[in-house]
């Protein structure tokens, strides 16, 4: 395991991207990878289920509070199976600039040498995909994620967001941005869901990496502040996430 895999998971708010990402992180961490998960959503709850349901202080909160005295341990926390958890955070609701917040959080992580200190094998960026302005596009820029996956369901708004994100990547082919690597269908059990998403994938020019079924175990685990991988490691759903994990790594070129 010498390569560093940098993967961005985008999706519309509420689509289950944080759940998916956290279970991916947990699954891969159990397999022995050193995983870092960075939540890029002003909601700042991406890593909650890796931290026993605890919300960690965000990078922006800490910058606000500690200014130049900020240290790496103020913003990076060790969660389930030593996954390193970071939340970029956001501004006071109603004012400021959330997109710029993500950029500033990323710059701060670099300034504090986070990647050199923790030496992760895999970094997940869990990104809100409703808006793809400059800041929210940051994780797919040169130097950050190499691969982008989009979590979607068959719902219209979710597919719309997926199209937006793929468009953002395509528009800037010359800029050395991340590669679009496929869609993850997080089933909502709506009518013709697979067909709808397949059609969208075809239009965008990508594939569905995996269909993640809907399971009550997810909610049960989250009620305990845990991922399915942590709470019910032997259940069917855990196997689905382990399968998703190996498929993602396969797409990323890991043998």
């Amino acid at each position, binding site marked *: 395991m010498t390569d560093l895999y940098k993967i961005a998971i985008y999706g519309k708010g509420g689509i289950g991207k944080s759940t998916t990402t956290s279970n991916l992180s947990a699954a891969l961490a159990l397999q022995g990878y050193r995983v870092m998960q960075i939540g890029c959503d002003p909601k700042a709850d991406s890593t909650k289920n890796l931290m026993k349901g605890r919300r960690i202080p965000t990078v922006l909160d800490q910058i606000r509070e500690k200014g130049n005295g900020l240290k790496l341990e103020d913003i990076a926390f060790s969660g389930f199976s030593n996954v390193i958890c970071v939340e970029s955070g956001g501004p006071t609701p109603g004012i400021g600039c959330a997109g710029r917040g993500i*950029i500033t959080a990323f710059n701060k992580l670099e300034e504090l040498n986070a990647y050199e200190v923790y030496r992760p094998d895999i970094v997940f960026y869990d990104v809100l995909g409703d808006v793809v302005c400059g800041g929210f596009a940051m994780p797919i820029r040169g130097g950050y994620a190499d691969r982008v996956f989009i979590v979607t369901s068959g719902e219209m708004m979710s597919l719309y967001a997926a199209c937006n994100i793929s468009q953002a990547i395509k528009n800037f082919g010359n*800029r050395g941005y991340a590669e679009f690597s496929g869609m993850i269908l997080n089933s909502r059990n709506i009518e013709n869901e697979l067909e709808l998403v397949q059609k969208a994938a075809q239009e965008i020019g990508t594939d569905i990496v995996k269909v993640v079924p809907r399971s009550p175990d997810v909610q049960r685990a989250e009620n305990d502040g845990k991922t399915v991988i942590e709470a019910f490691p032997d259940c069917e759903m855990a196997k689905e996430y382990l399968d998703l994990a190996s498929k993602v790594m396969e797409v990323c070129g890991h043998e």
Partner: protein
Amino acid sequence: MGKLCVKLPPFSPDYSGVCSAIFDLNCVAVIHDASGCTGNYTGYDEPRWYGSKTAIFCSGLREIDAILGDDEKMIQKVLDATESLNPELIVLIGSPVPMVIGTDMKGIAADIEARTGIPCLGFDTTGTRYYSDGIAEACLALMERFTRMPEQKIPNGVNLLGLTPLDFGSSAASDLKAALAQNSLELISSFCDGLTMEAVQNAAQASLNLVVSQSGLQPARYMEQRFGIPYLVQIPIGRKAQENWLKAVHNCLNEQKSLVPCAAGGETDILVLGDEILCRSVQLGLEADFGLTADCGCLFGTESELPETNILNLEDEQKIEEAITCGKYRRIIGDPMLRMLIHPETEVDFFDLPSYCISSKMSGMSPVSCIGEWFNAFLAEIR
């Protein structure tokens, strides 16, 4: 700079630093702004602007382009200018608005490079940091991109790092270069005063880097890591100090080791205000030539990795004013504009050493050189 600033003008920002560093190169450069940021640079941060043909432009960014993220408009303008002016290098420079909307200056640079085949560098400058950061970033980008691994080093070859008109008046820069020549040191590249693309490419032939301002530190560390070139952090200020500096240069050359000379320190009533390397060098000059100790009042942040004595981080107007008026100091060296902070009842002798990054063309006096024995003349009355 700290928050409320009542008397002093703001100091030069990062985007001016980038421009200052690339000024001598055959480039098309663009500050991505509406007009005021470019006006800061061309009007107040670049003493060489009058009479020059340097192609540094303003992108003419407008609200609707910012809101829509319409980078293509700027890209087209850059392509047009490039076609007309045939530069060797294209440079894109950020400002506060691109910072807020998160314009990807580096990504756009890659795009333009792909379309033109001309090397293009992008800088995420923001207008919230000092010029020294901009100079350092520009030098680093140039070195990373263009400096070649040399076949062999030139034994007495040196580079100057951190030399721009924002810190050094024209006389100081030429005195510094003369000091090298008189002592049989070959100047390979000067970052950035009279810089050429060829000099950038050949910079790693040097056997020693001479860091003369804070903006030269990061590039020096990079060159030490990448090319194994050691560095010496000192401006030769003062007759005796220059002799010591020369010894240090030869030591560093012979032993291929970096050196950051440091004054002995102690109690003092002298305060030097400015760039940390300038302050430290004046401190060394006072010690060597006059047997005096001084405190360094650093206006542009401090370098925590350097060994220190009597270093103060005066990061905003209140702190500078407190230091000047606290009663501890009887003699102060600094830009004449800092005199505005002296209270009527403060008893100090103030020695004017103008810095363009502070007072621009408004210092009311000609540039001063303190290189070598000029310092002794400058401070004739300090005893």
